[in-house]
């Protein structure tokens, strides 16, 4: 019998070693895997290359900077335009203590999707003529210029869903899908926290968003209130 449910968030992240690449689903407060992030903090995994849409914007990812667990972030949004209320990540970035690779949000999502779909990359108009294009192939297709972008996978993905079943099928709430959906497909080990865990067969198959084949572990989410005030 397949049962992907883990007894605790600490058990779900217990085998994550140092110096791995970890994807984190979520967009600001929506669909952010806070329970698993806090378990990762407790475990003290170090040398993490993190992949997430954002860090330090009302998400809890910034706590991984408290004990300098992050080596590098790959994100679309990490440094605020204004100097107000800098995150720990931003302070450490400006001090040269952590690396940042800024990727356009759609390119980030599609690179992750490409990795999960077994594709060797894709051509996009996004980024042509900008610093993002540096060192990348530019190709003219039907009279327009496109940039070649490579797939982006990870060792682990930490996700947040509204409901999971014991087979790892996931449904989301509101705008909580965001990067959870492509990231579910693009890591060797995928761990999802969910507000509710139900027996297999109790989710409507017509409404499942992430098929269980992608998900390795499921754990019950703790309630954490997140709010971003700009």
């Amino acid at each position, binding site marked *: 019998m397949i049962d992907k449910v883990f007894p605790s968030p600490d058990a779900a992240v217990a085998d994550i070693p140092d110096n791995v690449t970890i994807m984190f689903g979520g967009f600001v407060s929506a669909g952010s895997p806070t329970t698993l992030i806090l378990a990762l903090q407790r475990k003290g995994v170090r040398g993490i290359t993190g992949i997430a849409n954002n860090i330090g914007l009302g998400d809890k990812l910034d706590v991984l900077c408290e004990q300098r667990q992050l080596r590098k972030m790959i994100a679309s949004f990490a440094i605020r335009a204004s100097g107000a209320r800098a995150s720990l990540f931003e302070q450490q970035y400006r001090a040269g203590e952590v690396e940042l690779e800024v990727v356009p*949000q759609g390119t980030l999502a599609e690179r992750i999707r490409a990795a999960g779909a077994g594709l060797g990359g894709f051509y996009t108009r996004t980024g042509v003529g900008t610093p993002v294009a540096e060192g990348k192939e530019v190709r003219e297709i039907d009279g327009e210029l496109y940039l070649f972008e490579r797939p982006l996978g990870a060792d682990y993905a930490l996700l947040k869903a509204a409901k999971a079943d014991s087979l790892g099928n996931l449904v989301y709430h509101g705008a909580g*899908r965001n990067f959870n959906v492509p990231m579910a497909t693009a890591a060797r080990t995928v761990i999802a926290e969910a507000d509710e865990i139900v027996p297999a067969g109790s989710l409507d198959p017509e409404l499942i968003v992430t098929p269980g084949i992608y998900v390795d572990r499921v754990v019950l989410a703790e309630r954490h209130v997140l709010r971003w005030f700009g």
Partner: protein
Amino acid sequence: MPQGLTRELIALRVARELHDGMYVNLGIGLPTLVANFVDPSVQIIFQAENGILGYGGILETDFDQDLINAGGQPVGILPGACFFGSDASFAMIRGRHVDLAVLGGLQVSEQGDLANWIVPERGGGSIGGAMDLAAGARRLIVAMEHATPAGQPKILRRCTYPLTAQRCVNLIVTDLAVIEVTADGLLLRELAPGVSAADVAALTEAPLHHAADLREMSL
């Protein structure tokens, strides 16, 4: 410097460009205000690149942390709304299905190049969805102050800041003027009340052609 429009009045003028049935993405900052000024007799469906079609007003209380717009603000959803992941959202954007995007700007060139994601002397920078929206929306309006607080022009012959996208801007709406980007350069179409074409030219580095029907903005 001449007295220009408030940010709210810039947003009101941009809102006149939104027509019934359009799918529209509003960038963070000033563009977010545009939603407040849409004519109630038209139906606009707002796309949030974090995965919503059909979000409504910003909520101050009783919010749901999973229901936010792309600026992270809690929003309501309207009847007929739907949700999707970030990969589908940007396929929608790059695939030219979004009729109009409104973004803020640091600099716009006379060719319609846009720079809006990094101030080089400040470092860092955050791209978010701006590059995909600039490259993918069918029509792009930049809503911004005409000049910097120090009075430096932001509408230039060439952008000096790193670009967001090349030749992407269709219309520039500022506190002083409405300027269309055409194949022949920039066309000054409208002036804010009390602002002259000479005032605008003095704060614009790029040359401006005057529209045959150059007029005062109707607000």
